[in-house]
C-alpha cells in the first residue's frame, strides 16, 4: 500500500468508502498468537463471542480459528477459554 502525502489527504481525513476498515490488517500489530488445542475444545464458542476484533471464525467441523489478517494477539480468547483449549505463543 502506497502511503499518501499530506497534500493527498481528504479534507478532515473523512473516510468516504463504507467498510474500508477491513482493508487495514490489524494482524500486523501482533506479537503473540493464539493456538487452539482441539482435543480440549468443547466448541462452546466463547472465544468467538469475546474476540474484540470479531476475527474468530467457526470452521465446518465446529472448531474455531482466528483470521490472522486481523488477530492482534490480545489473548482475550485464551483468557476466556475455560476448558483451557487456547494457549498464547510468541510470534516468530
Amino acid at each position, binding site marked *: 500500500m502506497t*502511503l*499518501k*502525502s*499530506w*497534500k493527498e*489527504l481528504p*479534507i*478532515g*481525513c*473523512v*473516510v*468516504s468508502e*463504507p467498510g474500508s*476498515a477491513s482493508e487495514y490488517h490489524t494482524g500486523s500489530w501482533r506479537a503473540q498468537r493464539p493456538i487452539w488445542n482441539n482435543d480440549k475444545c468443547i466448541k462452546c464458542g466463547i472465544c468467538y463471542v469475546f474476540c474484540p476484533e470479531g476475527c474468530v471464525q467457526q470452521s465446518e467441523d465446529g472448531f474455531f480459528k482466528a483470521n490472522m489478517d486481523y488477530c492482534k494477539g490480545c489473548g482475550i480468547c485464551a483468557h476466556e477459554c475455560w476448558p483451557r483449549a487456547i494457549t498464547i505463543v510468541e510470534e516468530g
Partner: protein
Amino acid sequence: MGKRLGMEVAVAVAEAVGLCNIDMAAVYPITPQSHIAEHLSDLVADGKIDAEFVTVESEHSAMSAVIGASGTGARSYTATSSQGLMLMHELLPIASAMRLPITMAIANRAVSGPLNILNDHSDIMPQRDAGWIAVFAENGQEAIDLSIQAFKIAEHKDVMLPVCVNIDGFQLTHMVEPLEMPTQEEVNQFLPPFVPHATLHPAKPVTMGAFAMSDYFTEIMKAKDEAVKNSKKVILDVWNEWGKLFGRSYKPVETYKADDADILMLTMGSMGETAQMAVDELRDRGVKAGLVKLRLWRPFPFAEIKAAVKNAKKLIVTDRAVSFGGPGGPVFSEIKSALFADTQRPLIYNYIIGLGGRDVAVNEFAGMFEKVLADTGNVAADTYEFWGVRE
C-alpha cells in the same frame, strides 16, 4: 444600513448570531456563561430564529454536540468562558482536525484557582494550539461584526476550520454600548449558505474522526497546520468585503499613531481603547508613543506585526495571562519569536496586566510607557514584570 442601538454586548452578539441562519446551538448555562447563551435560548424559544437549541449537561457535551451537528452539515454555534472552555479543551483539536467550521464566542475570563471568573485571557491561552482560528474583539461593534464574519471565514471551502471570537468578559460582554446592528438583508447578502465538505448521512455513509497510526499522524498534522496558515488569505478577503459592505474595515494588526512612534505598546482585546487614551496623553506631552492592536491571534500575522513595529525603538507587549516559569506572557513570547531573526527590531518589554478582572486605568498605561522610557540602560528589555503587583 443597519440600525443604531444601545445594547448589552453579549445580547447583541446573540442577536447578530441570530441573523446568521444558524441551525443549532449547544450551550451549558453556567460554567460560567454570558448572556450570549441566555439570549440565544430566548430567540429560539420565541420562534425568532429557526434553530435547535440543545441544552447539555456540561461544556464537554456542548462542544461534542456542536461537533456532531456540524458533521451533519448544520451551521453550529456555541459560547463559553473560563472553566467551561477548559472543559471543552479535549474536543477543540478534534473539531479542527475534522475540519468542522464551528463558531464559538469566548467571553474571556480568568481560570481557577482561585475561583475568580473575572476578565483576563487565561482561558483562551491554553487553547492556543488547538488549531482554531482565533480573533479578538476590542469593543462591542467588533464583537458583533467578528461574530458574523466568523461563519463566512470558517465555512469557506478553502478554510473549513472552527473559529473562536474572543470577547473580554464583563469589560465587553456586560457593557451596554452603542452599536450598529446589520439588517437581516445585509447579513443574507454577506453570508452564503453553509456547504459542508462532507456530511454524516445514512444515504451516503462516511467516517469522520477515524483512527490514524504513526504512519499517517504526521501528515495529518502537517495538513492541519497548512490549513490554519492558508486561512489567512480568506480572512483578509472576508474583512475586505466587510469593509466595502459595512464601512468598517478589519485588519490582522491595527495601529494607532504608530507610523512615527519611537515607543509602541501592543494590546489584544478591550484594553486597546484605554491604552489609546494613554497614547494621546503622551503625544500631548511630546512623546512619540503609538499603539499596535493584535486582532488575529491564529493564524499569527507575522508580516503585519513586523511591518507595524520595525521602526520603533521600544515595544511594550501587554499580556493578560501568565506562562508560569516560562519566558514571559504568551503574547510576548510569540512577538519575541516573530521578531527574533530581524536585525531591525525594537527592544521588547513585557507587562502582565489586568489579571482576574483588575482594572488598568489610562494613567497606568501611561506609567508603563514612562517606566520603559526611563530604562535608558535597557536592563528590563526582554524580561517580564507583573504590573502593579504589591511587593
